[in-house]
């Protein structure tokens, strides 16, 4: 396989692309890692209401170092701010928001996404010692939409967009869109549909890096 010249998206660009697709008024939970960066690219005057599993609705940007409120942390245990209009609830109510289908969107990282929308993002082996699931299964199964932001392949070039997840599942048939460093793809009844690619990349080159079959929009 010969590569033509192309420029993969960097982490910030991946977050920016997802951020650009979030309309005002959505209730959104962002997972740890690149998904967390998404919030930085939603302008404050486009009101998107960020949720954190530990009972926070209406998270704002990170605080200045001299303005930390020690009683305000997010699910990643980072200090946060609360926007005007933000509110607090207990853990069961917070997960009622998630599990009751009230979040418009959740953005998670993943190890693998299958072309039927299955996601694996919490353990890399069936025999993982002491795997940590946190709120990922609730978010994946509960949010109205699940988007994934992840690299297109592992460091050794193995595709993370697969026909069938080999890692333990987080949830079945729930991913709606994937933002990778190479492309943006929707998960549809036909499988992965390519919405956009990194500059200079061809569909052929993208397919060469992808286990799952890629489609163009109908």
């Amino acid at each position, binding site marked *: 396989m010969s590569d033509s010249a192309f420029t993969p998206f960097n982490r910030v660009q991946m977050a920016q692309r997802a951020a650009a697709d979030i309309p*005002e*008024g959505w*209730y959104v939970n962002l997972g740890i890692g690149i998904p967390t960066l998404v919030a930085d690219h939603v302008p404050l*005057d486009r*009101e998107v*209401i960020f*949720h954190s599993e530990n009972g926070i*609705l*209406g998270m704002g940007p990170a605080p200045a170092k001299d303005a930390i409120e020690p009683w305000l942390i997010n699910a990643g245990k980072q200090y946060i701010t*609360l926007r*005007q*209009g*933000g*509110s*607090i*609830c207990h853990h*069961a109510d917070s*997960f*009622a*928001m*998630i*599990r*009751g*289908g*009230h*979040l418009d969107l959740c953005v998670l990282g993943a190890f693998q996404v299958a072309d039927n929308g299955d996601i694996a993002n919490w353990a890399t082996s069936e025999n993982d010692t002491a795997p940590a699931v946190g709120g990922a299964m609730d978010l994946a199964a*509960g949010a109205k939409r699940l988007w994934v932001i992840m690299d297109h392949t592992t460091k050794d070039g193995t595709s993370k967009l697969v026909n069938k997840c080999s890692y333990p599942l987080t949830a079945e048939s729930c991913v709606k869109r994937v933002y990778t460093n190479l492309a943006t793809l929707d998960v549809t009844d036909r499988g992965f549909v390519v919405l956009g690619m990194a500059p200079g990349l061809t569909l052929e080159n993208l397919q060469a890096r992808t286990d799952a079959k890629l489609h163009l929009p109908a």
Partner: protein
Amino acid sequence: MIDKTVQSMADAMAGIKDGSTVLLAGFGSVGQPNALIDGLIEQGAKDLTVAANNAGSGHVGLARLMELGRVRKIVCSFPRSSDPVVFETLYRAGKIELEIVPQGTIAERIRAAGAGVPAFFTATGVGTKMAVGKEHREIDGRTYILENALYGDVGLVEAWEADRWGNLTYKLAGRNFNPIVAMASKLTIVQTQHVVGLGDIHPDHVHTPGIFVDRVLHIPYGDPGGF
């Protein structure tokens, strides 16, 4: 800018379809969205299933909605009231369906609908008429029955304060079913005594976060008059 406030009753009621399930908060006349019920009467949707703690009184509000033949079925714990004539007349004539549910079971079923719990076991009603036809299960030596979530297509709520994000507070016994009706309904419509600025409600004091609210209409009627 998110602004869930609407400027007219017509806007508040827009899109409610025939055949909807409407969850109605309130207990006695406290925390009861009377203006919205009148709005629903005006709006015209029919063939409704209404879940509420009781089945209306006199010839106003829910009783009026029933009297107009717009309610196919009522789900409630206590169909009696100081003046239940409308309900009783319709019920005896076979013109309205009744599902009696213990008050705690109806509350938990509504909360379950909001929380993504489609069904749960409960001890309430075991050994009674309420348990007939329901799945029974013994868990740790006690018998329970399975109850289903009660989802609303529309929820009508009365708040004390609301902001433009739809954050709500309630006043004293006005809270009652309101927070769970807001959680359980696809379209939650709120009438509020006070509209306040964003941030005016302390984050620790929000009773219903805006995520559960779709529309807010300002109805500053003052104190409830009686029952």
